[in-house]
């Protein structure tokens, strides 16, 4: 039973998204417990669904896992940073990704998860989690730029009232970038390990473009950590690096279409 928990999660994510967006439509904000509780329930259902996936290979299971990590990071952002506005992006994104995964179909694309190596599962999980962290860094940067723009333009509308303070968004961007980059790096290294163990094949284009995006991400982290960029410049760097990741993924996918493999 993979479908039912996924459908429950999809419904709860949709409700959580509606709760996050409601204040922007002039409605009263939901109590914090509800705003945090609904996605947490969705996560619980989703974890059950993911644990029952017969295979982690393929676009659909990866999208499902990415949606799960995005909502988990959304809940963590709200719990630790009181940044419920993160859900403005993660909510629709995770709901859309999970919906897309269900549309593509979560049917087995490869050998059952139980029959595949633990390293392979770890590689996929760590890589997707790293990607979700980088997505969070991107979202925090986008929120920062929006709030910055509103504050500079002296517009005191919903963004001013409902988005977190600039400094907190900058901290969230910093933390998710600094944690996301090593996580992605670890995922890539685990991927090499899996490849050498004969568990998967990677073509040369993937390696070259993968290394290039890794270098761009490394630059975004470097300017924050080594050159102490903060605020708007750091937000732009973060957005540029994640955009590079997305563009490279789209290009590689166009070169080798299909839903059997995420990459």
């Amino acid at each position: 039973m993979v479908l039912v928990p996924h459908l429950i999660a999809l419904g709860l994510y949709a409700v959580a998204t509606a709760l996050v967006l409601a204040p922007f439509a002039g409605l009263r904000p939901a109590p914090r417990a509800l705003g945090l509780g609904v996605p947490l329930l969705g996560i619980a259902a989703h974890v059950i669904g993911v644990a029952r996936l017969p295979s982690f290979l393929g676009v659909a299971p990866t999208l499902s896992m990415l949606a799960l990590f995005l909502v988990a990071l959304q809940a963590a952002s709200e719990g630790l940073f009181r940044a419920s506005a993160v859900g403005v992006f993660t909510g629709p994104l995770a709901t859309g990704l999970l919906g897309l995964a269900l549309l593509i179909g979560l049917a087995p694309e490869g050998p059952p998860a139980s029959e595949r190596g633990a390293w392979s599962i770890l590689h996929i999980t760590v890589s997707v989690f790293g990607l979700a962290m980088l997505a969070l860094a991107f979202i925090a940067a986008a929120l920062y730029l929006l709030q910055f723009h509103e504050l500079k333009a002296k517009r005191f509308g919903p963004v001013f009232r409902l988005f977190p303070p600039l400094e907190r968004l900058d901290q969230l961007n910093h933390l998710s970038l600094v944690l996301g980059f090593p996580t992605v790096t670890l995922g890539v290294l685990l991927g090499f390990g899996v490849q050498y163990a004969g568990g998967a094949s990677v073509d040369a284009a993937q390696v070259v473009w993968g290394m290039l995006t890794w270098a761009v991400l490394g630059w975004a982290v470097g300017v924050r950590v080594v050159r102490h960029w903060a605020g708007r410049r750091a937000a732009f760097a973060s957005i540029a690096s994640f955009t590079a990741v997305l563009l490279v993924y789209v290009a590689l996918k166009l070169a080798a279409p299909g839903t059997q493999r995420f990459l």
Partner: protein
Amino acid sequence: MSITVLGVNHRTAPLEVRERFAHERREVPASLERVLAAGARGGVLLSTCNRTEFYLAEPDEAVPEAVWAILSERLGGGRSASEYGYTQRDRDAVRHLYRVSSGLDAIILGESQIQGQVRDAWETSKAQAGPVLHRLFQSALLVGARVRSETGLATGAASAPSAAVAVAARIFTRLAGRSALILGAGDMAELAATCLASEGVRVTVVANRTYERARAIAEQLGARALTLDEAWEHFAQADIVLSSTAAPHAVVTWDRVAPAIARRGGRPLCILDLGLPRDVEPAIAQLENVFLYDIDDLQAVAAQAAVERRRDIPAAERIVSEEVERFWAWYGGLVVVPVLKEFRERLDQVRAAELERTLRRLSHLSPDDREEMEHFSHSLLNKFLHQPTIALKEAAQAGRGYGLLEALKRLFGLERRDEP
């Protein structure tokens, strides 16, 4: 049995009158003692810059006169404080306090400072409050908290100084521990600086054209006093600059502060210009990570919050009404028991006296018959009392016991404690 509030507030008296009535904490017990001596069973004095109110439990007729006398003495010039005053009784008095603690009766709708002031008043007056007012003030604090949590009455910043705090809070994660530079030493600068300090902001420098005035405010805020010309360098360190000078032109100019701001290393700087005309050159807002807001901007923030708060007035009033009924039900229940006991005792005395008189006339009756007569009289009394007792208890539980009790006391002469 009654609760009364007598007082003045921002609706009934101008500031220069209200400030004469304001009591310092140490003055409260003496004023309350005078009121209690005039014949009240409990009193709490709530004194803020916007109101001075005496809440009284079961005041005698002489008490209002005593209250107005206390306030008239402060007013001076032979004027009577009652000209500026109002009186509310019973449910209206309870409703009044609940509306005050909820911020419904405040100049700035929903302001939360009053909650702390109600708590202070209650704590200062605890020795004189008595059980009824003790319960009333305790419940008022809960009602205030309930209104603020269940409605949007306290959301946003509804005054220019609190809007200044709200704007700064959209830039910095925490205001506590941030450093502020204050330019100017007028009332507005002082008020806004106090507002920031109440959020934990450290006012490090107060600068003014005249050093002496800067020093007076700096001492109050634990800051350093400077002249304006010495202040520009501090733009490199301060997180928040609050300006409210009386200068007829901009004093914070690009040439004066841009070099210091360039040394900040990209740290955000929030400049709040409360001056009229403006103190800060608008071009300074073009500097990276400098956020400049003038009085119009802050008033726009405040106006928006006020509009949103006003939408929640009906919901807040509903909560207040609900809580007034709840308190009144408790209060009615509180007094119904002793009155019923007295009522029963009074009728039992009548029963005993009449029985004795009858038995004297019927001396031929056997002891068994006399006992039967006594039993009959008890039974008859109980039957008569049953329905009124039930009705009174039910009315008290529903918060409608007060009127019935008053009627009962009047009809059966139960005002024993008032008898000489």
